């Protein structure tokens, strides 16, 4: 039957699918859900960032503070890595939309690798700070700093797991162009994690202490 259909019928069908039958707004449920979720996440990270801003100065004069531990060149590099992972994520999305599955896999893997580099940098940073005397329990700055960046790191880690799952799906042939939106939705999450870091990097690391 599909053979006999003219392109007009297909177009008409596509229209009904998009508007009438599929969803009221024409947007897919999954993508809408992700955006709704990201709206909610704003309040989560907003709370953590405000808690950090509020608490970072509440330390004694001899306590370990931001100036004693921060290594701006190092963090700048890892921030840059995360920023660029957003670019590779965009490439992953556009390659699968074009039907370039191999390209999609390459970019997914690159994004995951960049993300993993960032997390590794964070682990290194935490270890370094700890050896310089800043533990989670040392003072308010320590608690607030580790809580905020740890939450963000956990988000990145979950993102990496999701990207790797996509990669495995792709290798097994389960991630065809018809699932481009799945990649796009994971991409939204990934970009969100990136913009959170844009804010954290500026407010936590770069603001004059």
């Amino acid at each position, binding site marked *: 039957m599909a053979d006999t259909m003219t*392109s007009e019928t*297909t*177009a008409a*069908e*596509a229209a009904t*699918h*998009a508007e009438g039958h*599929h969803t009221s*707004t*024409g*947007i*897919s449920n*999954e*993508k809408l859900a992700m*955006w*709704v979720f*990201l*709206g909610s*996440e*704003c*309040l989560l990270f*907003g*709370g953590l*960032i*405000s808690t950090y*801003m*509020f608490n970072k100065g509440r330390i004694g004069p001899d306590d370990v503070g931001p100036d004693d531990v921060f290594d*701006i*060149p190092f963090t*700048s590099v890892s*921030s*840059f890595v995360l*920023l*660029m992972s*957003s*670019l590779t*994520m*965009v*490439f992953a999305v*556009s390659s699968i*939309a074009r039907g370039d599955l191999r390209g999609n896999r390459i970019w997914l893997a690159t994004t995951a690798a960049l993300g993993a580099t960032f997390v590794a940098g964070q682990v290194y940073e935490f270890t370094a700070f700890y050896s310089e005397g800043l533990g989670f329990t040392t003072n308010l700055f320590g608690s607030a700093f580790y809580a905020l960046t740890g939450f963000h790191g956990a988000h990145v880690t979950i993102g990496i797991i999701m990207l790797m799952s996509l990669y495995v799906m792709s290798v097994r042939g389960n991630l065809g*162009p*018809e699932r*481009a*939106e799945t990649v*796009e939705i994971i*991409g939204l999450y990934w*970009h*969100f994690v*990136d*913009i959170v870091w*844009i*804010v954290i*990097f*500026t*407010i936590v*690391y*770069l*603001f*004059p202490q």
Partner: protein
Amino acid sequence: MATVTPDSPDTAHAADEHAHPSNWLYVKVAIYLALLTAFEVFTYFETVHGWGDTAIIIMLVIMMLLKFFLVVAFFMHLKFDSPIFWRLFVFGLILAMAVYMVMLTAFRFW
């Protein structure tokens, strides 16, 4: 949108195609992001030369917002996508900023 009729790329996607920017645009955005980051880091080391803290904070906030906007608008497609997403996300964002800034104000934080 993209998921609905993957089997008819010639029709439903026709509207999509021109809405999706090219990879070159993304690269340009990434270059801007990189430059902004470089400037941000630069201000950190310039502090030593005695700019006022307030001036630096204002500059940093502006650059941060620019970066934020670039990623959201281009990488997350909000510029090209349904306005519903834009409203939902911006609502969350503004609400978060509002309540937490009021909270910090109540603490006489500023």
